[in-house]
């Protein structure tokens, strides 16, 4: 199943946020979206996921979702968006309660999602009892439970410390390894973008336009090796050179606001 951004423009009041953004996320592909602060990355993701109606253009799905997918487009949120009154298990089960799955099938799905994210021993814990990294694992487990075709990840690691970020990035690499699931990965962290994405869409400063699409010419498995580090760093610098001037302008704009 492909996800298509078709000439998406968006305005908040008189403020143009996105301007005719178009690209396609092919089945199983991971596309990162980077750009200076305020360029509309998260807005674009909300539009792609159907949480926001664009002013112009549209988000489209092409092809059938996988047979067992309960929610083909599934978000992983920056702030985890966990229900604080529910245990880890109940949070993971939350999107399944209103599906056609019977109780046994639902429990099996939840158990599998908890196992894949290393949360089996924490099923009875409440979000407030967990670290930031563990909370995001719950968010990921909840997303996996509905067997998405495409994950929509809005800066999923930005609220975490660097060590936890590294560990979760390894988890993402593992989860995306078989190519069964694609992803749109919004981030301001260029290292995350080159480590995880097959292609990186670089947006310009507001109103966000597609400035360049950079392909990462190696598999995710190859990127873990020491040999790849130099190449990834070069790509990261290439992306930064595309963004740097506009990032400075965007920062000054925020300061002057």
């Amino acid at each position: 199943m492909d996800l298509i951004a078709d000439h998406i423009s968006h305005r908040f009041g008189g403020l143009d946020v996105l301007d005719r953004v178009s690209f396609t996320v092919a089945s199983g592909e991971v596309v990162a979206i980077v750009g200076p602060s305020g360029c509309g990355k998260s807005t674009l993701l909300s539009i792609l996921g159907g949480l926001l109606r664009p002013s112009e253009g549209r988000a489209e799905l092409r092809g059938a979702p996988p047979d067992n997918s309960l929610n083909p487009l599934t978000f992983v949120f920056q702030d985890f968006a966990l229900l604080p009154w529910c245990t880890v298990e109940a949070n993971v089960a939350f999107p399944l309660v209103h599906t056609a799955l019977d109780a046994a099938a639902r429990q099996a799905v939840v158990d599998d999602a908890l196992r894949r994210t290393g949360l089996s021993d924490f099923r009875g814990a409440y979000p407030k009892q967990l670290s930031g990294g563990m909370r995001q694992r719950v968010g990921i487990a909840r997303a996996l439970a509905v067997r998405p075709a495409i994950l929509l990840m809005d800066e999923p690691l930005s609220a975490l410390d660097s060590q936890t970020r590294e560990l979760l990035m390894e988890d993402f690499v593992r989860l995306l390894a078989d190519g069964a699931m694609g992803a749109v990965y919004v981030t301001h962290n260029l290292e995350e973008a080159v480590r995880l994405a097959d292609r990186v869409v670089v947006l310009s400063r507001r109103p966000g336009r597609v400035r360049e699409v950079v392909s990462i010419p190696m598999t995710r498995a190859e990127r873990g090796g020491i040999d790849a580090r130099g190449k990834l760093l070069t790509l990261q610098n290439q992306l930064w050179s595309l963004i740097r001037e506009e990032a400075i302008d965007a920062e000054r704009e925020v300061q002057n606001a």
Partner: protein
Amino acid sequence: MPSVRFKMLERAPSQDAQQDGSVARPVAFRGAGFMPGGGRASGWIALALAIALWQLAGSAGWVNPLFLPAPSAIAVAIYKLAVSGALWQHVSASVVRIGSGWLIGTMAGVIVGFAIGLSTLARGVGITFISALFPIPKIALLPLLILWLGIGEEPKIATIALGVFFSTAISVYSGVDAVPRNLIRMAQSFNVPFHAIVIRVIWPGALPSILAGFRITASVALLLVVSAEMIGAQFGIGAFVLQAGNLMQTDQLLAGVVILSLFGLAVGKAINVLEARLLHWR
């Protein structure tokens, strides 16, 4: 031979003092205060002391018992009321009024509060009406309600229900507004139906505010039942307190006040238990 930097890192504070002649002193602690504890013993001790002092003043004849009877006299009055059965007659009359009025006002307030929290139209209309009517002291409406509903229980219950309704509606829609939008968006992103979002996300998210509202409305109900019973009732704690005052039976008057206080405490405890059970996740 170790480097200069290594030697500096190894140097102990006491050696510092020896080398430059100055004396090492501990950094002064400046982080005290602004963290009041939750000690309960001090409160009970203070209450016991106040009662003891009051009793002493009564027993020693420092105060006229007609104006301020001693705690022992009040306890005797409560005992006599209990033995005679009058206490239960008055308390049960008040409890029925408070219970009915609070329940009606709360149910209406929760429904209207949710409507205001979830619907643009209801918000526009509801907030206008609530803003206009909330400031009215509800007891002022009792004579009108007597005209409309007669002189039985209905106007008293309606007065309590009105008082409870407005505070409940406000606390409910404030609670709904306070539910983090990201949780609602999350539920929508999983295609969770509207009614399920209300039941599974908005209701539990608004519950802390709703229960805080219950605490306020319980006090409002108690205030209104006493006022309403003072205006027009034969039985009830308010009526009993008024009668005792008219007859200068201050021990009975204060017995009524103590019963009201105990009733308020019991309701507060019940809400504490409810909060502990329903909001254990906080």
